[in-house]
């Protein structure tokens, strides 16, 4: 394949630890990267992959350990130092200036030209040459805003190459791409490797690891759990290493016969995103009482819009939404919530809680104007206080009191506050999005068992999650969401994560 010596080690991170005020994000992690090699950093959300790479890229300073680059110990105080030493990083959220051109973005910070004046002519030429050399075709004068996500990622890669990067860090590079774009990206990555660029890919997708990397480091809870040669390892092994236990259902779920008419229906729903593209493109689904319907899908296939349109937070372009047989398409968020529809939002800090307000104030958010929490125009503060104390007890929320700001709680306890608020309303339909993102195992199991409890109370539940494992362990039915449509329906017992994953990434069976 490549002609470079496979054995020369270009980068070594030795015994890296990174302590944040409250978290030990990395603990004694060591990795090696050889010239012209692709390694993966595999791990769940919060395993410390990004922190490690940010340490490497000079965004964080390590608390302990050292970095050896081309046999020389280096200390980066900013990304600038890292860039100068030949490192490049393609961030998950692109570092591109939207209203500047491709050329301007690529040359930013290292512009050609004398006396502080940019030589646009030679810049454009260099960019064109570079994109030709690596087969990364892109229009040099296009404005970033007008480009697709895949093309924007190309600009990011070109930006690193323009700075003569020999080591490229790619942070979740496929997270936002379409399958076709993923294929193209993999081609680009292989070409780069052939020209001697070493790469570190941060990912939590097993497929990707198998597809492109030579070796894989597995991270779990900040520690390195192992190193494998990709060709010698099965996906099951990787999965076990990644989650640290046999992948089994974390909670005991009893099979249950679901009968009765559906409680919640979406019919041909179309929602446009801010760019005017159909984020939901004629989506239909139904949820029956007492069942959990899991929406599986790669991020960015319409999950956000689905949650929003259910709660009346974005405009329904066309289609209808029925709840208990009644058309609720035109109702406001408030009216929907009053019809015993509850919602656990995906981003709890942004949409679930008001962090500076107290726990008891958060506990009645959205219901603060209903009996018994209101007395005339006033809040019934005593009632709210007592209710909150009861909830804290019932849901095992660890807090010194109900009058402290919600922002002072840990993530798991914050999520419990939301569950307490939403579940105690005795809903008939429940929308749960990403309920366990970033939480520890204990909290995850607790939250899963609470969700199942709601199912046993005959509540219809729609679960949107990016974690396939979560979908499998909770759902009675799995719907695969791809490009704003439900492309396939499964029963978890009769399928595999591989099959679901196949449809999630746009695969089709004849």
């Amino acid at each position, binding site marked *: 394949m490549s002609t470079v010596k496979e054995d020369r080690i270009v980068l070594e991170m030795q015994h890296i630890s990174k302590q944040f005020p409250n978290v030990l994000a990395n603990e004694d992690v060591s990795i090696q990267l050889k010239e012209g090699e692709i390694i993966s950093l595999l791990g769940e959300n919060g395993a410390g992959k990004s922190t490690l790479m940010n340490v490497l890229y000079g965004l964080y300073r390590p608390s302990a350990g050292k970095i050896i680059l081309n046999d020389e110990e280096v200390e980066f105080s900013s990304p600038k130092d890292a860039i100068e030493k030949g490192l490049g990083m393609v961030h998950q959220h692109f570092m591109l200036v939207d209203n500047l051109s491709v050329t301007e973005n690529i040359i930013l910070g290292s512009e050609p030209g004398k006396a502080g004046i940019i030589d646009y002519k030679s810049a454009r030429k260099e960019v064109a040459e570079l994109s030709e050399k690596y087969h990364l075709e892109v229009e040099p004068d296009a404005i970033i805003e007008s480009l697709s996500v895949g093309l924007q990622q190309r600009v990011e890669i070109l930006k690193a190459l323009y700075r003569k990067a020999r080591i490229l860090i790619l942070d979740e590079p496929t997270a936002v791409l379409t399958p076709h774009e993923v294929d193209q990206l993999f081609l680009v990555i292989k070409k780069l490797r052939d020209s001697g660029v070493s790469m570190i890919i941060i990912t939590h997708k097993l497929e990707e690891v198998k597809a492109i990397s030579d070796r894989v480091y597995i991270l779990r809870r900040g520690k390195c759990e192992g190193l494998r040669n990709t060709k010698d390892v099965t996906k099951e092994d990787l999965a076990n290493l990644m989650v640290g236990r046999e992948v089994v259902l974390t909670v005991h779920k009893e099979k249950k016969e679901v009968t009765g008419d559906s409680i919640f229906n979406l019919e041909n729903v179309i929602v446009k995103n801010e760019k005017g593209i159909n984020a939901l493109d004629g989506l239909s689904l139904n949820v029956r009482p007492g069942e959990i319907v899991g929406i599986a899908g790669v991020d960015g296939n319409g999950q956000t819009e689905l949650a929003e349109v259910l709660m009346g937070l974005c405009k329904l372009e066309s289609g209808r939404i029925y709840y208990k047989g009644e058309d609720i398409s035109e109702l406001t968020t408030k009216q929907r919530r009053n019809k015993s529809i509850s919602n656990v939002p995906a981003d709890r800090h942004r949409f*679930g*809680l*008001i962090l500076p307000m107290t726990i008891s104030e958060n506990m009645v958010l959205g219901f603060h104007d209903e009996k018994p929490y209101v007395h005339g125009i006033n*809040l019934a503060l005593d009632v709210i206080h007592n209710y909150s104390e009861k909830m804290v007890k019932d849901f095992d929320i660890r807090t010194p009191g109900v009058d402290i700001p919600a922002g002072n709680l840990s993530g798991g306890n914050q999520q419990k506050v939301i569950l307490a608020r939403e579940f105690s309303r005795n809903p008939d339909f429940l929308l749960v999005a990403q309920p366990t993102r970033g939480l520890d195992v204990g909290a995850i199991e607790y939250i899963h068992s609470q969700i199942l409890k709601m199912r046993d109370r005959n509540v219809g539940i729609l679960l949107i999650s990016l974690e396939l494992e979560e979908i499998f362990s909770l759902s009675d039915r799995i719907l695969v969401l791809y490009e704003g449509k439900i492309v396939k329906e499964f029963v978890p017992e009769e399928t595999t994560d591989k099959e679901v994953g196949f449809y999630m990434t746009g695969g089709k069976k004849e």
Partner: protein
Amino acid sequence: MQITKLKPVFYVLAVISGIVGIVMYFSSIFSGFFFILLALIIYYLYRLLATDLKTVKSDIIPLLKNLLIPLIGMSSAIIIGAIIMALTGYDPIKAYKALFYGGFVKNWSISILNATPLVFTGLSIAFAFKAGLFNIGAEGQYYIGAMVATFLGITFNLPPVLSLFLIFIIGGLLAAAYNFIPALLKVKTGAHEVITTMMFAHIAKYLSSIFVRGMGGDSAGLHPYVTDPILDTNWLMRFKSIFPSANYRVHIGILIGIGMALLVNYILYKTTFGYEIRAIGQNKDAARGQGISVGKNIFIALLFAGFLAGFAGVTQVVGLDHKMYENLNAGYGWNGISVALLAANHPIGVIFTALLWGVLDAGGQYMTRTTQIPNSIVEIIKGIMLFLIVARYIYSWLGNRIKRKLGTRIKKSGGAK
């Protein structure tokens, strides 16, 4: 619990004692201070009897903690002011003596008069801030309130109390209406209220010039122009009618201001409307997600802010000036920003910061008269004070600096081992 049955008694005692004390104090009878003190003692005694020492402590300690940074900021500003004066050849000790004597004792009545409109504009801006809005154009709503009060004050010939009541309400409502377009644009198009209300403030200033000339008055070449005086029956009551020893100009506007501050405090922390306002101010997305109407609340909040600022203009006309001057660069709206920020947007805090500003202004004038030190030093001290209190990051920045210095020293000594 028997003591809880006595709750109303304690409350009534505390309130009466407090009101008596405040009214006496505002009438320059400084022994009123003891009644205010008494009110506080009764209140906390009641709290102590009804609950326990721990609860009372947890009431008071955060309060004192919150006062720490303002106190540091104030004293630093006073010290910096002293240095500036010393460097430019003035005697800072003499200056501050005159400043505080003038502000707190000699010209206490002027301090109150200065503070009165600031309470209202400060409340207006603080309330808007709570909803996440910056009502920077309170000055404009002030002008509207003043114009309405002048117009109605001249034309209304009704029974005194009714007429005053109507003037306040109509003045407030029209000032609120003046925020209608900024509020509408904010909700419908997202136009930033800082820009729109600021522009409207400038427009109001020029409209007031037209108004003043239109309302007749003494335009015989005299500059600035001034309107006809309002009818005597429309004058706001003065403290002098309660305590004859009070200054003849001090009116009960400050009491209305304090009442308004209590009302705003009540709205913000006890009512569902206030709850929604605070929720939106702190996290618009979460509030919207839980079904709170953001647009409606923002709209109402801006109008209510206008209403409060309008009261400042009304009070000033019916209470103190009894007519309206052209090109009067009072700046109560602009200074209201300082007052609100200094109080960290807490309505009760606004009363005190407005009084502080009033004291500094009145004391500054007295200082200039008696010591010839220019009172603009007060403006400079005010500005520095504001910076030091509002830019809280300064303190964590300083803290980090010190920590880092200590840290390197420890590292060094550690390395020597």
